[in-house]
């Protein structure tokens, strides 16, 4: 929030003035009130492996993270460029594979990757869109300095928190939204529905019927699935509601079976179709891939998009962006050592105490080592795992992430954050101004994942 000279940074100036006039105890009471709102509404997530605490709240911090309009425009341009490149890359990988032929990416990296689906080869999804919804994880290290941490191109979650955080802030502090010109995020569900409907399969006549596919009530993001279906005004379906009949995917209603045109699925590729992928999946729809390939349903995001956000592919993103857009990437990639390469592995093992090591296929902050904060014993144990399966890991330096203030009992204190803006792709790319700011609540911590004790904040993008 502050400049080096302790004056508030420009986008924070109005907020800072307001904050200075507030009674801290009142704010702390408001904080409790927010928690009650979340609990009452049932905005919870499930932590796997915790039988006792099957539903948890994500801590909400009520000091907004504020981004100036100017800074946002730069960021948005970079994200758009990157998302366009991701889609072009996917189309290429499942068709001509020119990027491999040009020698920019090793063939085995693609073809030996579990996220690469041979079933998608030669198939082009309706409208040529692979990643309908993307959540690009970004960190800021200084004025106008952004790094992309991850491109979540499978089924990025968290957008319901973006919307509920804003809703809660507007309920609790309406005056702030008079004083600051904050760009709206509320129309996200409408844009999502519009964007999904616009990519209905060519055979669909009439108004496309959209549905959200959830793994069910025990999934950690079930609240979000229900929330999005509700806000979009579409059905929330489970695999057991769906069946392939006459070459279409149909849902069982109280009046019989009705066809679905666009399925926003929040079920992983592996579980989508037991006839094509994991035969033991009870979450999917037997035969949906045949319907898909016959052009009778749109699946968002397309199966097989995981090959574009794989952590091993990540290190090639600068090449990918340049290859497909013909321009230098506007956003930086975090320098990444691929432990599969012997020289990199050697470097990583020698510098473990300054690196973050991640599993190539991991997510949620599990199975990673944060070198600087790990104990010596943890590092030694991790080094063994690394040597055993080097191809399973990548390593990155710890960036000096910028911090934002959070409310603590003694007032405000700085904490590290990241940012996940949400991007909708149809015939155009739409980036919602704002996104989900995740904050590491523990002092000094760099891990923002909600499964690891991270919290969230409302994120403001100001009009200029």
């Amino acid at each position, binding site marked *: 929030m502050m400049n080096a000279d302790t004056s508030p940074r420009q986008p924070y100036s109005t907020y800072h003035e307001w904050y200075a006039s507030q009674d801290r105890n009142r704010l702390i009471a408001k904080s409790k009130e927010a928690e009650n709102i979340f*609990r*009452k*509404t*049932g905005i919870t997530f499930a932590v796997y492996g915790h039988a006792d605490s099957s539903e948890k709240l994500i801590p909400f911090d009520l000091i907004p993270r504020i981004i100036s309009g100017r800074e946002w425009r730069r960021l948005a341009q970079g994200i758009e460029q990157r998302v366009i490149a991701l889609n072009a890359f996917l189309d290429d990988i499942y068709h001509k594979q020119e990027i491999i032929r040009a020698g920019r990416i090793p063939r085995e990296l693609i073809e030996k990757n579990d996220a690469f689906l041979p079933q998608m080869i030669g198939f082009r999804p309706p409208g040529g869109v692979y990643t309908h919804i993307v959540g690009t994880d970004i960190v800021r290290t200084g004025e106008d300095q952004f790094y992309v941490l991850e491109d979540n191109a499978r089924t990025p979650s968290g957008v319901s928190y973006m919307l509920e955080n804003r809703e809660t802030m507007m309920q609790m502090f309406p005056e702030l939204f008079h004083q600051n010109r904050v760009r709206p995020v509320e129309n996200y569900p409408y844009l999502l529905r519009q964007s999904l409907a616009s990519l209905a399969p060519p055979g669909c006549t009439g108004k496309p019927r959209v549905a959200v596919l959830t793994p069910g*009530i025990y999934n950690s993001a*079930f609240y979000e699935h*229900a929330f999005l*279906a*509700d806000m979009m005004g579409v*059905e*929330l*379906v*489970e695999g*057991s*509601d769906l069946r392939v009949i006459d070459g279409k995917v149909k*849902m*069982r*209603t*109280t*009046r*019989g079976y009705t066809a679905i045109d666009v399925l926003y699925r929040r079920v992983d590729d592996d579980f989508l179709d037991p006839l094509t992928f994991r035969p033991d999946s009870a979450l999917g729809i037997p035969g949906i891939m045949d319907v898909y390939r016959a052009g009778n349903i749109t699946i968002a995001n397309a199966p097989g998009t995981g090959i574009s956000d794989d952590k091993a592919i990540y290190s090639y993103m600068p090449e990918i962006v340049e290859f497909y857009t013909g321009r230098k990437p506007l956003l930086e990639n975090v320098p990444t050592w691929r432990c599969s390469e012997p020289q990199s592995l050697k470097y990583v093992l020698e510098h473990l105490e300054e690196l973050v090591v991640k599993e190539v296929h991991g997510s949620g902050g599990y199975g990673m080592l944060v070198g600087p904060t790990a104990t010596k014993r943890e590092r030694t144990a991790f080094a063994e795992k690394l040597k055993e399966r080097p191809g399973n890991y990548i390593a990155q330096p710890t960036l000096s992430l910028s911090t934002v203030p959070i409310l603590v009992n003694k007032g405000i204190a700085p904490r590290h954050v990241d940012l996940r803006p949400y991007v909708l792709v149809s015939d155009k790319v739409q980036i919602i101004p704002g996104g989900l700011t995740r904050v590491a609540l523990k002092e000094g911590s760099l891990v923002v994942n909600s499964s690891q004790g991270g919290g969230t904040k409302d994120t403001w993008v100001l009009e200029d």
Partner: protein
Amino acid sequence: MLGRTANGLYWMFRYIERAENGARLIDAGLRMSLTRSEATEDDWDGVLQSAGVRELYDQVHDKLTSSDAIDFLLRDRANPSSVMSCIEAGRHNARMVRTALTRETWEATNECWIEMKQSLTRMVRPAEMPEVIDAIKRRTGLIRGAFHGTMLRNEIFNFSRIGTFIERADNTARILDVKYYVLLPAVSAVGSSMDNVQWESILRSVSAHRAYGWVYDAELKPANIADFLISNGRMPRSLAYCYEKIVSNLGYLAREYGEKHAAHETAEQTLQSLRSRSIDDIMDQGLHEYLEEFISHNNRVGQEITDGYRFYN
């Protein structure tokens, strides 16, 4: 609407109804043990039977004591019909179908669960019991209020109402069936004080002890009690009232969908039988037999709704 959603709504409201009725049963049982000079565990035997969990109780407990019986009815997760189990199951279904519920209805259900989970973490002491029973009635009442005040009168509403009344009809019939013998024409024309306690307890189990006096004489008479709970179309927990509601909600669905199912006919027949038979006639035929037949018809209607509207497949 998805068949699974209709199923979720139907069961959400069955469970909430069952939770509320469970609280009422416990209340009536407590009242009965207060009114007696010598409290007897037999009273709780009857309450457990009314709740349909007498056998299950024996699987968990060696002997019948009032405190164990109350705990079993109120909190025991081993009892799928305990108040806590029902609130949990109702809320679970609500969470599954929350896209079909208004925010008010969902929040009332969620808050009911949050509060009851909190107040039923430990065994409830006798002194706290009235407060807990009140809280259950209040919380389920808030759900009903939010539901009535905010929900569209469409198919979602119809399936919810059908669930409520199938459950309620089942509960009322069971309460009567467990105590049917105290309602049989007595040897003496005037009920003993013992009979009076039993009769009042039946009325209390359905929160009807005040209303009874408004409709009939202040004096309790078995035939009037049976009439009130079986045939009186103005009594919201009577079998006749429940079936009027079931038939009318099924009727809305038939009009909206343009098709009828087996459930429509079975429900209509059940209602006709409730309307046409006088209470004397029922008593002559045998109250117990009549109630048994009713419970089995009620189950059949439930099953036919499940099949007709594709709840499962």
